[in-house]
């Protein structure tokens, strides 16, 4: 994607999202909070999947690290500053990702997927079974936190989520996207793509394949933790379902829905999935069936996802103009 097009798309997106809370009911504004959380997490996930070619089926463990980290730091230790919590959970998730990544990145393809799945389920059973530490299946409460030192005491939870927290998350997403744009367009990002396309050749020309894969894994963990902390803040709860393997599968689903070969694909996927799930849930109790059907159709017929479809529609227009 050309930088000029990307900037245009990003600016339009930011303006639309900045105006959104003023135009739609508060419900839809709060619905966008999980979108922001997932979008940030998926930006990191796609560094691993789209750019490095490693499909993790346990990535939800880093979202859990974010949500449970927020619950521990804000709830147990009583540090109510969201910035401090974010910083702490990012560091925590990245430190956690180092040994796990070290063990996982030596494998690729199906074995990488299964190792990450096993680690994810290891976390799940830890969170689920060690009741006295983690609250078991009832989870841990994530208390309300202050943003930039401001309490917003006059706002109730919905107003906080639809107002200050909405813009806070939008800003976080912009920062995360800028950061990720820098990462994938740096020599480091080029290394990752070289590893994805031909790991052996990359090794011949002097790329430390394992080291770069590990770096991508650790970076993606940090983004995941930010996403998890946002999700935890919104629900006010961190429960073990967040790290169950189906949730990891859902992350892959969103990324493929949006299109993993496009920088903005994960963001589009998170948005489409959040809206789709909400609408389907209000429409029918059999929303999983429809979502599964959509996933099947995309995998079979449109593997480039929404971003790829839009791209295919736009390209002829773009060319005819110039």
């Amino acid at each position, binding site marked *: 994607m050309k930088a000029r097009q990307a900037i245009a798309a990003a600016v339009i997106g930011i303006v639309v999202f900045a105006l959104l809370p003023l135009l739609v009911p508060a419900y839809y504004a709060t619905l966008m909070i999980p979108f922001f959380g997932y979008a940030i997490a998926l930006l990191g996930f796609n560094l691993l999947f789209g750019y490095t070619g490693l499909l993790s089926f346990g990535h939800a463990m880093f979202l859990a690290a974010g949500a449970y980290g927020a619950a521990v730091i804000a709830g147990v230790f009583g540090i109510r500053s969201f910035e401090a919590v974010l910083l702490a959970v990012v560091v925590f998730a990245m430190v956690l990702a180092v040994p796990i990544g070290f063990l996982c990145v030596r494998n690729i393809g199906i074995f990488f997927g299964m190792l990450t799945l096993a680690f994810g389920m290891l976390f799940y059973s830890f969170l*689920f079974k060690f009741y006295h530490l983690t609250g078991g299946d009832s989870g841990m409460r994530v208390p309300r936190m202050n943003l930039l030192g401001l309490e917003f005491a006059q706002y109730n939870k919905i107003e906080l989520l639809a107002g200050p927290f909405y813009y806070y998350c939008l800003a976080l997403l912009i920062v995360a996207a800028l950061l990720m744009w820098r990462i994938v367009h740096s020599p480091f990002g080029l290394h990752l793509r070289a590893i994805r396309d031909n790991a052996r050749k990359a090794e011949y020309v002097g790329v430390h394949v394992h080291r770069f894969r590990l770096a991508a894994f650790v970076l993606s963990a940090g983004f995941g933790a930010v996403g998890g902390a946002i999700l935890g803040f919104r629900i006010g709860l961190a429960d073990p379902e967040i790290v169950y393997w189906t949730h990891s599968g859902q992350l892959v689903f969103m990324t*493929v829905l949006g299109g993993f070969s496009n920088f903005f694909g994960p963001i589009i996927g998170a948005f489409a999935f959040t809206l789709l799930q909400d609408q389907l849930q209000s429409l029918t109790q*059999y929303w999983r*069936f429809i979502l599964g059907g959509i996933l099947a159709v995309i995998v079979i017929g449109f593997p480039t996802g929404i971003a790829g479809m839009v791209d295919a529609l736009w390209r002829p227009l773009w060319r005819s103009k110039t």
Partner: protein
Amino acid sequence: MSAFANVLLGGIFHAAVLFLVAAGLQLVFGVQKIINLACGSFYALGAYFGVTFIGWATQLGLSPWLIFPGLILAGVVLGVIGPPIERMLRTVYGRDESFQLLLTFALVLMFQDVFRFFWGANPRSLDNAYLIYGAITAADLGVPVYNLLVIAAAIAVAAGLGALLQQTNFGRILRATAENRAMAEALGVDVRRIYMVVFTLGAALGTTAGALVVPTAAASLDMAIEFVVEAFAVVVIGGLGSMRGALVGALIVGLIRACAIVFYPEFEVLAIYCIVIAVLLLRPAGIFGRALA
């Protein structure tokens, strides 16, 4: 001592059911190189159908002696879902593994709502149906005969699969296709048909396991997504694509789970994944798997 024997038998029973599902997973992976996340859904489908079958059987006043063979028959008949699903999977053969995983994940999501639609969201159980054949009591040890029948059935399936793969011409063709698809095709093997048969066989193994387990456990929406990770653990420990691996892996997982439940319940699932991770790290191909180049 008898408590220990009970734990052991419980573990072996669980292993027998796990083996059936894992064998289906191994067969499909070995020949088609596809990891089927929906194998847990086949298992759950068998279980739900088993509940319905026993309901009919009691309504019709069917002799209890027909329940066990009837459940096996129900499971085998459910194999009919194999061909249409295989037809769908045909679109992703030869594409990236992630697409294959995702397509079977889509099936998992869809099956969840199929169960919800036909059988409701609440778990469906049968009261003490596993005692229909009574129990053998020796000293202070009581073993339901039904559980022994299931273990015997799993052993028979293991032996049958071994004979099928090693001693029949069809088994030779299967192994040849697993080894080298292109060469088998060049020699005149109808690979499409082989794939369809293999997938159907794999699905039938899963549904049969589900149908057999239902007299002892409730059929619930969670069982599909819970069981698939356990079956995964089995095939990873045993080695992907290896039948012997499925047998040994199932025994390891079944016995560890049974022991953990008694001695340290917190470690029930944790212990299994610790072993999975250890195996993947030390011997990525599994105990009986061959190293993939």
